[in-house]
């Protein structure tokens, strides 16, 4: 019973895992390439949410210093996870852009964006040649 209460207090982790499973199922169940890219983006977002939420402390403020003079580190949220995830977000954007470029190239070559149809075309080309 106490473990259920513990789970209910860690609602952020449950939300992050739910987003991860939703993104993963989108990636597996659709055959359209654009939808697979969207699923991968949702999985990236869920991992960022899990990491950034490690830095939160109840009842403290955002890490913008105010009141010039002495600074008490005990009234600010941990800023280190936010600073580290910035690099991760940029890497996710770069990977998405490259995936989209490859999809445009595939569309120009085969005329369709559907994975099953592309495999059929490849199979018929390999069977004939």
């Amino acid at each position, binding site marked *: 019973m106490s473990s259920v209460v513990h789970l209910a207090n860690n609602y952020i982790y449950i939300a992050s895992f739910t987003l991860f499973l939703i993104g993963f199922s989108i990636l597996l169940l659709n055959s359209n390439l654009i939808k697979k890219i969207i699923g991968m983006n949702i999985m990236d977002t869920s991992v960022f949410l899990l990491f950034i939420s*490690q830095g939160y*402390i109840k009842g403290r403020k955002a890490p913008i210093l105010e009141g010039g003079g002495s600074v008490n580190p005990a009234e600010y949220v941990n800023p280190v996870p936010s600073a580290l995830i910035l*690099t991760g977000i940029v890497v996710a954007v770069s990977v998405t852009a490259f995936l989209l470029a490859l999809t445009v190239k595939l569309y120009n070559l085969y005329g369709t964006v559907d994975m099953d149809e592309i495999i059929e075309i490849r199979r018929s080309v390999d069977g004939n040649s």
Partner: protein
Amino acid sequence: MKRITVGLLLGAMLVVLLSTVSEMPQFGSPSNPTHNYISSRYVGKSALETGAVNVVTGIILDYRAFDTFGEATVIFVAALAVISVLARGGRSGD
């Protein structure tokens, strides 16, 4: 058939992840292992050593500016990769 397999796989992943969440420390408590002396040093000395009021900017552009340099390089190389895949109209044959 495919949906049943995916459903079973996701159910197994859900059970594993939920049992992991029950072992993780409490969300938002100040005695988590992620809050150590580094974050209190960064918050406490940021105005003196870097001069930035925004602590996150002071971290990514003063204490760890080399990581931000690598990240700018990553996004620049991504632009190079997209150009090399998609740009047309260059010189052909020399």
